[in-house]
């Protein structure tokens, strides 16, 4: 399904997207097109993209092509999804250890839609971090292996 969603292939394009998408949530899916969980997530993203078009813009980014971003966001598991609004990185508390990105796929399309709505509303009120509306048992579990604090 990933051929339906636009892709960003280099650092400059990602920079451009972050700096130019205005007044909508920017969704960047970091992963690989042929990975199983990425395919699941891309499916959900593709099916909801039209309905969310007034609130969000979605792009797919291959982790191999933007090592700068992969390292900056400390992306160890794919897919990882990062959210921005007006050039500002939006953090979300999912009940998981990492608030800077969403790791894994969503269980249902509605989960993703709810999350985008919460981020959009929070951003409109000036909040830089919001709490995810998704039930914690539907959040994929993983180990946060961050070193070197």
């Amino acid at each position, binding site marked *: 399904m990933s051929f339906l969603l636009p892709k960003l292939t280099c650092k400059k394009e990602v*920079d451009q997207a*972050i700096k130019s998408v205005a*007044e909508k949530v920017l969704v960047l899916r970091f992963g690989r097109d042929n990975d199983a969980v990425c395919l699941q997530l891309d499916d959900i993203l593709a099916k909801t993209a039209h309905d969310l078009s007034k609130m969000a813009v979605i792009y797919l980014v291959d982790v191999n092509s933007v090592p700068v971003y992969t*390292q*900056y966001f400390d992306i*160890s598991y794919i897919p990882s999804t990062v959210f921005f*609004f*007006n050039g500002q990185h939006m953090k979300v508390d999912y009940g998981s250890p990492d608030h800077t990105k969403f790791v*894994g796929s969503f269980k249902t399309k509605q989960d993703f839609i709810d999350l985008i709505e919460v981020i959009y509303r929070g951003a409109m009120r*000036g909040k830089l971090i919001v709490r995810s509306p998704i039930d914690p048992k539907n959040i994929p579990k993983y180990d946060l292996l961050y070193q070197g604090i």
Partner: protein
Amino acid sequence: RPEHRRETARFWRENRAEAALRERCLVPAEEYERFAQAVERALVEHQRREEQRILQMAADIREAERRQRETVQAALQVEPELCTGPSVCRPTAGPGRDNPCAAEQPGPSGMQTGPDLAWMESGKVLTFIGHQEREGKGNVHTGAKPPWLTEEEEDGSKQQIGPSYEEFLKHKEKQKLKKLPVERVGANFDHTSQTSDSWLPSFGRVWNHGRRWQSRHQFRTESGENKKK
């Protein structure tokens, strides 16, 4: 002990407390001895109980892990075609990941029924693409400068004098923007401003008295020294 008694007597006299009260307040020596021994015994007992509890918990977790692995194996064998995806991912996930991940959900997922288990299984087998080592540069957790704010190369300037039609469209967009809430994120962001390296005001000094500029001054001095070195 005799000097202790003298001191208590003196204390009683000085504060002019009743003698009868003193009898009740002083803890006789034997009582104290008994208490000390009882404390020791209770402590030993408590430690033993805690150790047992921890061993029990460890055994429970191991048991749960085993049960979970067996369930997963059974499920994978039942549906071979559907599982070629996840099982391809499994080897790339690495051996170290399997155990800690299984330990995350000892009880509940072992008891979940088929479809739910399938979703969480494939969700759990997230492809691991390695630790992102970026020593000396920092990342989003350490507050380093984000890549989209680092201006590296610029495109060659446009040949034309200026895209006036685009300007007009942007102007119309900006008119619409005035209707949006004023306190939304990024509303007054000046897109043309440059960003210095100290864009994040994190100069620590948690336990300080004094004003913020003092800790900022301190931080600047220290980082100035570092640069000169």
